[in-house]
Every structure is written in structure tokens, then in C-alpha cells.
């Protein structure tokens, strides 16, 4: 518990100054790398004074994502012929390359491939790491565009996507990543272009130890809530996450921007209390998740306890003894609460309730605090829905920060929620009827159901973490989950940008005593309630057949 409190204190403490700094980045007040920034604009032919409507902004974002999607697809297919491939790893199959390209373009970082064996160091750096920056920056840029919608009356423009992208990468992601990478190297992460090391084990056998440019990728993997590990074991691998200090650092990195964004928002709309309120709602959901998962894991597995094989102090299966239960559960819950998808322990081996927590956090729409950018704008969608449902109760047409919430916004917001629900439930439900889907499962019974549900949830919500136990490189899952990732990202983001465009154009009404208050504990409670009821309730039947059923079966002495 103390560990959870420590993580929260470090993250929230840093989020305030960082949020303020990020607001300055969005408002173009930060200029310490101005010559470099201008250089990029000149190089790319970007007119930084041009302002974009929401449509132009969305088109720019989509176009860039599309180009990078094909670029990455090409790199993955052709990696055999590309440099920095000391292991001579072959090109990916079309469907795996599609799945991986979709995964990294959408900031999901779902890994259906085995990193050590199916991707070269060069592809990791040029293909994946670049996308970890770009997809994260694109998400943050979209969030910045949404923030601008609330700043003034009758706005036509949401900003300039290219400028936002450049500034976010240059002033935010790169500096923090570099510092963090250095810290990781100091702590023992490798950062090299040398080929894998061959070693001899004590038993006399030989072993290949995979290494590569790990530290840099590790830093952006966490900071950009990407989650795609350099190694299959992800942050459970000693090269990715050598010790308890790096574990804490990585945990901090993956949360900090997500929590800083609402603070930036507060500065942008010149009402810091509004930002703090959103941050509080995010933090409370995450804290409940951390405490819940920790409690479930610390309670241990009743079967192990009964058999007398349990190590004292909870369920240790699938966890690194380097980190222990609190650090492991906090890390995994943080990673699912942020759409990072990195893991330092294996959710598949968690107790059913311990595994339900990360899954439910994703199903809630990744709002605690969610992926960089995407978490923020998803919270805004739920905020608008909360304001709309409960705002009528003060006797006025609902408004948020002076912008009236009307037909168009509700239509778009519901469309977004509908798309997420459709891909998660229809995807998992359909896969479980097909022989191919069932064949991918490592376990039977409700645990198998959880594996499949988790996969579709993780892909649609752009989380990317895996429950493990699922063989994901099948045609059904490669293409299906790939589509889920693309729709979960863009079919949600575009309605959100449309909402921003619609709200931006509206007059910003002055606040009065009759205005629905959107700060304070009451609104925080309301927002959490709406997130759970409108965002999570639809998954309850499926969750009941998965983790909940398993939980009660486990306590009745039945395991899968």
C-alpha cells in the first residue's frame, strides 16, 4: 500500500509542473529549441501560421498515420534486406506485418510477434521506436486540439497538426525520453547495436542472449504509453527493467503525461480547478484498481494455500521476485490504466479478480489516465455525457465550460462509445464461436474466455497488453485485432475531433450561479459513476462469464 502511495505521490507531484509546461508547449510559449523547430518546418514545408479546422486537423492526422502505417508495413516485410539485422531475421508474414503495423500506428503496441525472433534491431529502432514517438505525439496533439475547443467563443480552428506534432515530440517526448534512457542505462539496461551475445551456461549448454538498443526504446515505450517491449517478457525482462528502481521509474514514466494532460487543460481554459477535477477522477479510478488488484493478489490463490505450496504473502505465480507483489500489481494496473500495455508480471497468472481489474480498467475506455492524449479526450467524452445526463437536473441546457452540449455532440459521443463496445464484445464473442478462436486459447473454461475477451479489449482500447496464454498470430486474430486497433483508435478519435470542432464553433457562455458546477467532489463522483455505468456496465455480462465465474469456481476448488 505504501508503494502505491509512493507511486501516486511521485506521479501527481510531477504532473502539476509538467502539465503547466505542456500547456505552454500547446500554446507555443516554449521556444528553447526554436531553431531546430523551424528547421523541421522548413524541411517538411510546413506553414506554421496556418490554422486548421477540425476536418483539416483530422485529415492531416489520418494521412500521416496512413503513410506511417504503410512505411512500417514495408519495413517489417522487408527487414531481412534492411540494415541492422545482425541475426538475419526473416521478413514478417503479411498478416503479422499488418497486425504489427496497425498496432504501432495506433499506439497500441499489441505484439503478436515474438520480438527476439521475429524482428530485427533495425526494425525495432526505425520502425517501432519511431512510431512510439509519432503515435504518442499524434494522440497528445489530438488532445491539445480538443482542449482548444473550450478556450474561446466561436473558434474556427483547432490548431495546426504538424506544428503540434513537432512541438510535442521536440519539447516533451524527446527530452524526457533521453534523460530516462540515460538513467536506465546507468541502472543496467543495454543500449547497443551489437548482435546477440552467445554464452555458456553453468550446465555447459550454450545460450543466445538477446540484446540491442533497449534503453531508449524502453523509455519511450513507457513515456508514450506504448508498451511494446524490446523483449517478449516486456518489462519483466531484466534488460528492460533491471531492478526495483527502474521499475519505479518506468511506472512513473508511463503515468506522468496522462496525469499532466488534465492539468494542461486547466491552464489552457484558465480554470485550473477544472483540470484538477478530471485528474482526480482519473486518479481515483486508478487507485481503486491498484488497491483492488493488490488485495486480490496479496490474498493469494486458495488452492495453493490449501495444498500448502503457497509462498507466504499472496499469489506469486507469474511475478518477478525482484519486484514483489505491490510493485508488480501497481505496474500492471498502471499500464492497463494508461493503455501502455507494458507488463512486468503476467496477468494470465493473476488470480481471477486480480486479472479482472486490468481488464475492467481497459473496458472503462482507458481513462485512468489512459493513453497519452487518448485518455484525456476519452475523459472529455465521458465528461460531456455526465454533464448532459445530470446537467439537466439544474434546470438548464447542459453546458461544459460554457459550451452547450447538444444533439450533435451526444450523437458523436455515443458513436464513439458504440464503436468501442462493438469491437470488444462482438470481436470476442465471435472469436469464441469459431474453431480458430477457441484453438488460440491456452486454457479452457472461464479462464479461456478471459484470455479472448482481454485480447479484444486490449486491442480495441489500444492498450496492447496481453493476458498471455493466447496464441495471437492466427489469421482471425491478426486481421481481427488489427482492425479493432485501427477502429478503436481512429473511429473514436475522429468523432472526438468532430465534437471538438462543433464545440469550438459555439459561443462560450459566461458562468453564473445557475451554471452546472463541473468541479469538486460531487462532480468527481458523478463522472466516475458515469464512466462506470455508461462505459463499463455493458461488459458486465461477459466479465461475469470470464473472471467473475472463475473467481467463484476457484474458491469452490476448481481451476483451469
Amino acid at each position, binding site marked *: 500500500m505504501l508503494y502505491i502511495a509512493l507511486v501516486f505521490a511521485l506521479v501527481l507531484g510531477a504532473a502539476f509542473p509538467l502539465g503547466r509546461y505542456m500547456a505552454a508547449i500547446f500554446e507555443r510559449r516554449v521556444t528553447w529549441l526554436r531553431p531546430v523547430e523551424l528547421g523541421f518546418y522548413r524541411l517538411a514545408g510546413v506553414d506554421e501560421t496556418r490554422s486548421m479546422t477540425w476536418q483539416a486537423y483530422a485529415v492531416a492526422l489520418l494521412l500521416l498515420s496512413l503513410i506511417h502505417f504503410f512505411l512500417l508495413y514495408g519495413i517489417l516485410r522487408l527487414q531481412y534486406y534492411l540494415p541492422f539485422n545482425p541475426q538475419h531475421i526473416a521478413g514478417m508474414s503479411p498478416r503479422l506485418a499488418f497486425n504489427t503495423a496497425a498496432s504501432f500506428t495506433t499506439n497500441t503496441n499489441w505484439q503478436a510477434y515474438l520480438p527476439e525472433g521475429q524482428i530485427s534491431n533495425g526494425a525495432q529502432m526505425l520502425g517501432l521506436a519511431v512510431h512510439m514517438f509519432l503515435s504518442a505525439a499524434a494522440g497528445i496533439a489530438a488532445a491539445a486540439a480538443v482542449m482548444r475547443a473550450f478556450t474561446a467563443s466561436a473558434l474556427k480552428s483547432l490548431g495546426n497538426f504538424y506544428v503540434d506534432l513537432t512541438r510535442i515530440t521536440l519539447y516533451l517526448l524527446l527530452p524526457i525520453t533521453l534523460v530516462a534512457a540515460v538513467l536506465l542505462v546507468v541502472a543496467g539496461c543495454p543500449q547497443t547495436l551489437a548482435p546477440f551475445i552467445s554464452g555458456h551456461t553453468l550446465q555447459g549448454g550454450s545460450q543466445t542472449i538477446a540484446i540491442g538498443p533497449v534503453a531508449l526504446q524502453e523509455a519511450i515505450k513507457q513515456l508514450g504509453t506504448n508498451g511494446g517491449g524490446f523483449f517478449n517478457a516486456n518489462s519483466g525482462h531484466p534488460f528492460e527493467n533491471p531492478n526495483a528502481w527502474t521499475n519505479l521509474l518506468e511506472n512513473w514514466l508511463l503515468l506522468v503525461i496522462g496525469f499532466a494532460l488534465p492539468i494542461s487543460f486547466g491552464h489552457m481554459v484558465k480554470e485550473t480547478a477544472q483540470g484538477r477535477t478530471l485528474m482526480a477522477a482519473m486518479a481515483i479510478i486508478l487507485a481503486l484498481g491498484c488497491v483492488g488488484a493488490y488485495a486480490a493478489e496479496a490474498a493469494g490463490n486458495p488452492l495453493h494455500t490449501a495444498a500448502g505450496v503457497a509462498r507466504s504473502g499472496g499469489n506469486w505465480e507469474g511475478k518477478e521476485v525482484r519486484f514483489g507483489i505491490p510493485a508488480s500489481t501497481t505496474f500492471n494496473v498502471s499500464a492497463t490504466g494508461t493503455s501502455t500495455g507494458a507488463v512486468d508480471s503476467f496477468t494470465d497468472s493473476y488470480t481471477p479478480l486480480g486479472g479482472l481489474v486490468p481488464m475492467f480498467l481497459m473496458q472503462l475506455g482507458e481513462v485512468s489516465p489512459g493513453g497519452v492524449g487518448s485518455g484525456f479526450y476519452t475523459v472529455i467524452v465521458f465528461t460531456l455525457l455526465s454533464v448532459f445526463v445530470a446537467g439537466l437536473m439544474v434546470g438548464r441546457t447542459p453546458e461544459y465550460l460554457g459550451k452547450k452540449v447538444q444533439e450533435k455532440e451526444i450523437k458523436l459521443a455515443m458513436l464513439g462509445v458504440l464503436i468501442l463496445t462493438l469491437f470488444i464484445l462482438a470481436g470476442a464473442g465471435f472469436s469464441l464461436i469459431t474453431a480458430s478462436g477457441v484453438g488460440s486459447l491456452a486454457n479452457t473454461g472461464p479462464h479461456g474466455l478471459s484470455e479472448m475477451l482481454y485480447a479484444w479489449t486490449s486491442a480495441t482500447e489500444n492498450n496492447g497488453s496481453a493476458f498471455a496464454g493466447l496464441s495471437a498470430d492466427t489469421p482471425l486474430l491478426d486481421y481481427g485485432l488489427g482492425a479493432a486497433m485501427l477502429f478503436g483508435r481512429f473511429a473514436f478519435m475522429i468523432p472526438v475531433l468532430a465534437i471538438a470542432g462543433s464545440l469550438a464553433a459555439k459561443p462560450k457562455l459566461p458562468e453564473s*450561479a445557475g451554471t452546472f458546477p463541473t468541479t469538486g467532489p460531487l462532480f468527481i463522483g458523478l463522472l466516475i459513476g458515469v464512466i462506470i455505468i455508461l462505459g463499463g456496465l455493458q461488459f458486465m455480462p461477459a466479465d*461475469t462469464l470470464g473472471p467473475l465465474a472463475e473467481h467463484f469456481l476457484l474458491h469452490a476448488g476448481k481451476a483451469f
Partner: protein
Amino acid sequence: MSLFDGAIIRRAALDSLAKLNPVTLMRNPVIFFTEIISALTSFVAVEDIVQHQPYGFPLVIAIWLWLTVLFATFAEAMAEGRGRARAESLKRARSETMAKLLVDPRDRAIFKLTPASDLCQGDIVLVKAGDIIPSDAEVIEGVASVNESAVTGESAPVVREAGGDRSAVTGGTQLVSDWLVLRITADAGSTFLDRMIALVEGAERRKTPNEIALNILLAGLTLIFLIAVITLVGFGHYSGTSFSIPVLAALLVCLIPTTIGGLLSAIGIAGMDRLVRFNVVATSGRAVEAAGDVDALLLDKTGTITFGNRMASAFFPVSGAAERDLAEACALASLGDDTPEGRSILALARERYNIVPQRSESATVIPFSANTRMSGLDFAGQSYRKGAVDSVLKSLGVEGGAAFAEAATRIGRAGSTPLAVTANGKLLGLIELKDIVKPGIKERFAAMRSMGIRTVMVTGDNRITAAAIAAEAGVDDYIAEATPQNKLDYIRMVQGEGRLVAMCGDGTNDAPALAQADVGVAMQTGTQAAREAGNMVDLDSDPTKLIEIVEIGKQLLITRGALTTFSIANDISKYFAILPAIFVITYPQLSALNVMHLRTPESAILSAVIFNALIIVALVPLALRGVKFRPVGAAALLKRNLLVYGLGGLVAPFAGIKLIDMALGVFNIFS
């Protein structure tokens, strides 16, 4: 009219059946969807009966699903029924009348009897005492008194005359005296009365913007839960569970927001109805909704903030004169003054000094003239005068002295009017005629302020007077020396800040401002132009009502929000009732989720469905009456309503479903 009038309920019960027609029900997506599910479940039940399968459970579920739909249509029918009662009385006024169509407008002797329904705009007709006015019209000649009780419910006749602000007459009202020549202003079928009937019957009801948005939210939720229930088939298939259609139907209908979906249109109709009951007719639901959003009220000073007339409030004797003598002189000077001001002076003298002067036969009344600006009374060689201070002083040829001048100025500053009073050519002092602010109005404005609504006083007075009265009444702002143009400018300015403005007016020159305002309430006594420009008409012509109109608008929105919150919060408990019930065959251990300890799976599902249906009926009175509005400010209001309807909505169904399950147990149903 009581909420549960027997005749209305009987009629509503019949109407609710007619409303099951899917074509009309399509306007309400949630309930339409429920109807489809009910039909599907019925089909399954019939199939089971025909195939001699056990049919008890599907049949009961089908019946209760149909009842859910029926209760929703009943709620709407109830709301309409209450409006219809009002419409019936209006229709009686529209009974077929014969109009005297003038062939030559200048000659009142020759007319052609024409049915009112054949009249067109621009026709000139004659009405005589006792005639029913055939259609909406403007008086072009004559003065007469008209009984407008058919429209307003007020039986005291009102004067209508050509020109000015009292030239509009309404079809269906009756001429009590004299005659009028009218120019018809509305074609048959589109008169004020016709529109009113259509509005209160709900026939012309169009969904308001907010209602449309809410419907989209509800339809979206319905789709989301549809996905959740359909995909459950896949999850069930994997888990080795198959669900029957009635079970899935029950789960789905319980999860979709049927409560608010069923009551939504009733809430809207009831809101309009509350206005009608208040003798205000809105031309659209949009206007009622806008009334709830209003941020600024433009209120006429006279009649709304102050009593229409100035009233004597104090005597100020000059040095050397007794106050009682002054009071007596005032009373005598006003003896022949029949204006409200004059009567108020007599009343004050009687109240303060018990002076009740008698008017003798020989007394001569000197009426007020614009020339002298004085009035008074001469009798038995005595003369008493009161009048404008400067005129009186000039006529006497004296200076009032410093104290007198100072008193006069002070009275003027306070927003009152000083009158100088003389007896036999000697200056006795001043009387203050005050614009009396209505008691309680200041508190109402304070309540408005706590709701975030600014009150703005509109007056023709000069700035000094206006400022004084504005301060006394506690308004937030005022428009002094108001003209139609500066009223319009003010409204545009406030709207430019993004605020919504409500105002009321009656004259033709108010029409532009009424049209510009977001909520424009025209007085029924006003001109046709004003009535056309506004989006509400107050049949009582009481400008104070603007405040109540705002409250009714807010109440409408609050009721909608409260029931939406309640409906959505209900879902949690239904999961706890239904999910363990449908999964328990596959995973008996899931009965741990049956926190309500419902007896059997069938009983649990049925109890949830019954609760879901009955809650609609239980909330009909609330939907019709509206959630009580409290002017306490948004934060306090939200706290209260969230507690009652949010938390209440979370908890209430747990108790309700448990009780229904126990009741079913008493009768051994599904045990």
C-alpha cells in the same frame, strides 16, 4: 383538475392501446424497440404453446414486456388527456359562427352573412353586441367591450378600440356592448384559438432540441446494450450455456432505458400543460425549454416591479405649518381627483390623521390641466391646490426656501414625485408620491440571482428615478428612458455575450424586441403584432409571470434530467438480479452474486421485468407534476437531485425487485 381524474384515466387507457401502432411509436426509439422485443417474445411463447412445450415463463415475460410498452404509451396518453380537457373547452368557443361580412367597409348597413370558416385575411366584418367575434382580427373602427373568458377564463370584459395597443381581438370571444368593424387577420384554421387547441392537444408537438439529443443518448444506450446481449450468445456458447429468447429479451429490456424512454414525451407534454394551466400559451416546446435557459429577464417597471400607480407615501410640511394641516389640505385638494394618485392621497390622510373630508354640493373641482399643471378644489371661499413644485411656486410668486427646495430634490432623487400643496394661496408643504415596489419582489429577484439570472428593469423614467427604484427593488440593471430601440439594443448586447434573454411586452412597438428576445411573452391584451412576434402569449396579461415561466422551463428540464439519471442508475441492480439467474445453471457458484437472495432464476428475471414495467407507472405522477423546483442555485440543486434520483435510482430497485420476488413467492409463482 386532479391528477387522477377518472374520465382522463379511462380515455388514456384506451388511447394507450391505439398508441401501440408501430408507425406512430417509431417516434420513441426505446419504446419502439421494446415493442419489437415484446412481439418476438410473444412469438416464442405462442410457438411453445402450439408445440406443447412448457410455456409459462415465456408467456409471463411476454405479457410483462407488453405491459412495459403499454405503460409507456399510457404515460403519454395521460399527459395528452390533461391537455385535451382544456382543448375541449376551447373548442366549444370555436363553435360555428356566422360573420357579417361588409360589402363596403364604409357602409355598416349592408352586410352578407358568411360562415366564419369562409373568412379570409383582409375581409372586413361587422360585429355587434352579443355577437361572437368570428376570427382573429384588428379593430379598424369603433370602441366596444369584449368578454374574452373563452380564451382567458377571465369573465370581466375588456375594452377594445381602433388604433393603439388595444386593437387586437381574438376569434371565439364575445362582444358585450357597442359595435366594431374588424379586419380579419387570420385565415380559418390558423387562428389563435386553433393554434392553442393544437398545442394543448399535443397534435403539433415537435420534439425540442434537448429532447432530440436525449433521445439520441437513449437510442445509443439501447444499441450498446443490444450489442452486449447479442454477443452474450457467443460467450454463452463457449461457456456451454444457451439462453432462451425470453431470457435475453428480459435482460435487454431491463437494461435499456425504458423508464425515461417511456416518460420522455409525457414530461414534455406536461411541461406545456403546466404553462397552459398557468394561462400562458407557448407557440413551441422550444420556447419552454429556452425559458429554463434564460440568463436575463427584462421586466417592465410599471405593473411588474412596482404597482402601476404612484402612491402618496409621506407629507413634508414647510416650517411653521403643522403636518396635520398639510394632510388636510392635501385631502381637500384631492377630493375631486379620481386618479389612483388622488385616491392614494385620501387614503394616506385617513390612515395617518383619520381625515375623511366630505365633498359639499357647492364645491368646485379644479381639474388638472397641462397648462397650470395643478388641480384642486374651491369651496366656501377656500381654495386648495396641489401640483408640480415649480408650477405651484410660480403661480404663488414665492420662493419655497432652502429647506423646501432640499426636500423636493431629495424626494426626486429617491425616485418619487414631489407635489407642492397650498391652501388659500399659502404654501403648506410637499406630498411625496412614490412608486411602490411590490412586496416580496426583492426576495424573488434575489432567488433569481441565486439561479444565475440577471433581472433588468425597463422604465421610461429618467436615470435618477430609475436608479433609485432599481436599487429599492434589487434588480441587477435597468434601462432608463427606455425606447423600443434601446430595448432592442440592450437585448442584442446581452445576447452578444452569449446570454439568453426573456422579456414581455404588449405594444406594437415592442414587437421587434419581442421577436429578438429568446423568450418573448406577449400580453393577450396586446396588439396582434406583439402577439405574432412573441413565442408565448400570456392570457392574463400579467407581466410578473415571466418569473414563473422561467421556473416552469427549469422544472421541465430538471424533471427530464432527474428521471434520466434515475433510469440509468437502475441498471446496476438489474445486473445483480438477472446475471446470476441466467448463468447459474452453468456456474452454480455464481449464485454468490445473487445478493438480493431472489428465490429462483425464473422469479429473479420476472421480478426485474415487473419492476422495470411498474416503475414507469409509479413515476407517471412525477413526470406529469414535475420535480419541484427550488431556487437555491445550481450547486445545491445538483447535490440534492443527484442524491435523490442518482443514489435513489441506484438503491430503490434493489428493494423493489426483492419485494416483487417475495410477493411472487407468496403466490408460489416460479418457486
